[in-house]
């Protein structure tokens, strides 16, 4: 086998000049990124070494130290915990005789943890060499351990291990079989405006307005970028859209490209969905649009890259550090050029409006939130999966449909979202009341919300990009405080401090830090009895 440095040359020739994509390939081939490969990539691409090193040390799926032949990352989302992932993690470590995060001395395996893998409706889940294995049980963990001990390559593992369910439980307007496009260009923009389409990634910016701003911004190039980073714990609807509606998605991107006059687009998919690679590459290869090219760009284990400006940095091959805003991506986006960044569902909805017009869309939903929303429902319910509802659906309705008879709390919007107690289940999912990218996690009456608070606080500390003081330090202090509380060493002062940290975090540079203490504060306020017993 060629040395890592030689391999890097080859990869750059074959894959082009994007350092992050080359690094992901090196990691795959060598189970780590050796120093000589870092140097070679830097010199071949004429970039400072620190840029390449910075990538390796930033992205969770890249490593400077050699990992095992099998590198396992257990999904550490709260929904995984609720399904027993922590016990399974210990069982796997025990089976293989490894300590968490430490590669076995014979180099066979490394077992660590990663944030939510987007398999919440079929957890617990893990990634083995980047590929998802869901529906874990004790037996499956034992079987996987044996396969690894026997050094059976992944391709020879039973197919069912890699099977990912779509679990589409409720279909609505978006999931119809939309074909073609009647509306294009100006007419489409008008139709989208009339329909009242707003972004589905969380912030809810009017989509037509974004596209028009990009079209009108000065620049020699323009880009259309689809955000399929989907890192918010409890969200997995973009995964299902990529699986079933990627054609509509590409159509939506192409329609946008024609409006803003972009020749190049990127689909930024989180690394956790790597198993979709062949599917997506095939569909892209079958596209016959020569005016607008779409390139796949893989993430590598960094939640922050879902933030649009961090995502653009990542496509540029840098660490995913959010940019100063303003200027916004519509005027200064990829390579400083006007860029549209939209969520998968937003592009799908736009192309469906192009195919069927905006009238029906407008008639659905509430006064301020038109159309439908895909919800990813997980946690304590008998039918977890994807539910498409018109905006305005009540939490009660969702609970009834998903079979959650005994709900204590519902977390809407993921770790960065809002925690509701039973008195609030009449609230409605829409931009005016409960805005969300689609994560709905149900906790039943057997649960202790302190666990969720602990899980979310660790999540933010692990995913903070480290750029700004309040978030880099504050999320870690918050997580340490929650750890103390859950180990029974907390004090009343710790509880008070959590409130303080919430205020400080609001001074953060981006949305991650700004919302990092939100759920924990909600839980403290609404379920104080879940914390009292453990606090001195």
């Amino acid at each position, binding site marked *: 086998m060629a040395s890592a440095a030689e391999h890097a040359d080859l990869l750059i020739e074959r894959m082009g000049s994007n350092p992050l994509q080359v690094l992901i390939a090196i990691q795959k081939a060598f189970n780590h990124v050796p120093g000589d490969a870092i*140097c070679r990539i830097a010199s071949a691409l004429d970039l*400072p*070494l*620190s*840029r390449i*090193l*910075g990538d390796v*040390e*930033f*992205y969770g799926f890249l490593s400077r130290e050699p990992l095992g032949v099998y590198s396992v990352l257990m999904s550490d989302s709260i929904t995984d915990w609720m399904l027993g992932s922590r016990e399974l993690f210990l069982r796997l470590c025990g089976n293989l005789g490894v300590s968490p995060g430490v590669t076995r001395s014979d180099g066979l395996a490394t077992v660590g943890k990663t944030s939510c893998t987007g398999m919440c409706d079929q957890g617990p889940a893990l990634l083995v060499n980047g590929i998802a294995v869901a529906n874990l049980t004790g037996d499956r963990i034992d079987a996987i351990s044996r396969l690894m001990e026997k050094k059976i390559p992944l391709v020879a593992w039973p197919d069912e291990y890699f099977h990912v369910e779509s679990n589409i439980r409720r279909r609505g307007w978006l999931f119809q079989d939309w074909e073609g496009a009647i509306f294009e260009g100006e007419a489409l923009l008008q139709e989208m405006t009339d329909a009242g389409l707003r972004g589905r990634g969380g912030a809810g910016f009017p989509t037509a307005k974004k596209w028009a701003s990009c079209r009108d911004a000065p620049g020699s190039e323009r880009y259309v970028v689809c955000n399929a980073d989907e890192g918010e714990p409890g969200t997995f609807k973009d995964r299902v859209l990529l699986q079933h509606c990627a054609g509509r998605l590409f159509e939506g991107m192409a329609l946008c490209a024609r409006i803003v006059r972009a020749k190049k687009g990127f689909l930024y998919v989180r690394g956790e969905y790597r198993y979709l690679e062949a599917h997506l590459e095939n569909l892209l290869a079958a596209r016959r649009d020569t005016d607008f090219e779409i390139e796949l760009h893989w993430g590598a284990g*960094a939640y922050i890259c879902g933030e649009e400006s961090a995502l653009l940095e990542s496509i540029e091959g840098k*660490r995913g550090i959010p940019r*100063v805003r*303003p200027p916004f991506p519509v005027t200064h986006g990829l390579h400083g050029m006007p860029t549209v960044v939209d969520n998968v569902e937003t592009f799908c909805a736009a192309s469906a409006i192009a195919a069927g017009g905006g009238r029906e869309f407008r008639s659905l939903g509430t006064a301020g939130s038109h159309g439908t929303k895909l919800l990813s429902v997980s946690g304590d319910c008998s039918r977890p999966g994807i539910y498409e509802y018109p905006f305005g659906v009540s939490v009660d309705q969702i609970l009834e449909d998903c079979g959650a008879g005994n709900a204590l709390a519902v977390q809407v919007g993921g770790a960065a979202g809002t925690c509701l107690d039973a008195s609030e289940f009449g609230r409605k999912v829409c931009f005016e009341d409960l805005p969300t990218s689609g994560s709905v996690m149900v906790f039943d009456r057997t649960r202790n919300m302190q666990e969720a608070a602990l899980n979310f606080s660790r999540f933010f*500390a*692990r*995913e*903070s*990009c*480290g*750029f*700004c*003081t*309040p978030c*880099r*330090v*504050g*999320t*870690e*202090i918050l997580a*340490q405080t929650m750890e103390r509380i859950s180990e029974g060493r907390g004090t009343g002062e710790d509880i008070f401090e959590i409130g*303080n940290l919430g*205020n*400080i975090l*609001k*001074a*953060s*540079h981006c949305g991650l830090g700004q919302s990092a203490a939100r759920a924990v504060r909600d839980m403290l306020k609404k379920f104080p009895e879940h914390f009292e017993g453990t606090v001195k």
Partner: protein
Amino acid sequence: MKAISLDGIMAPFAEGHTVMDCALAANIPIPHLCYLPRCVPHGSCRLCTVKIDGRFASACTQPAMEGQHVEIDTEELRQLRLSLLRMLFVEGNHYCPSCEKSGSCRLQKAAYDEGMLDLHYRPWYPKREMDASHPDILIDRDRCIFCELCVKASRDVDGKNIFGISGRGTDTRLVVNSKSGLLADTDISAQDRAVEVCPVGAILVKGLGFEIPIGKRLYD
């Protein structure tokens, strides 16, 4: 001329100015660490956080806009600054009594100005690598606050591009652009702007330690 209100004082501004630019021009102090005039601001330390029409914003990156009401010297913001400074102290290793920068350190001065008497949080005592390889210059990462001023100065002023920031979250670290990762293998010189610009004692010129007597130092 357009103007914004800074704690009730009207300050004029020109197109493209930030809130920090206005404040500096109007001689209204806003504490700051990662901002330096004539250097592109990026807003990482957040010490310059102000409240504009009810929302936090970093003054160094926030464009001034007609009609803004900017709060600076309020109890809420003083508490926030104090907390941010404490955070910067606990995440690193700041033993001022044995630091050559003491007395001329901008972090220390900012903490004095805000009346910081204690850490409040538990110090982390992180283990960070020291780089003493260069004959004239020392890197003590224990004191680095990731302001990136050295990165920008070396790249944009010295034209050498010697520093970079790597890692993520609490593992964020200052790195050197050389194969060995050591400063000795770069063409840095003690006269470089990158050395001078470090606000804390993380990049120091060797052999000058404790040269200036206590009482005569920059911020004494």
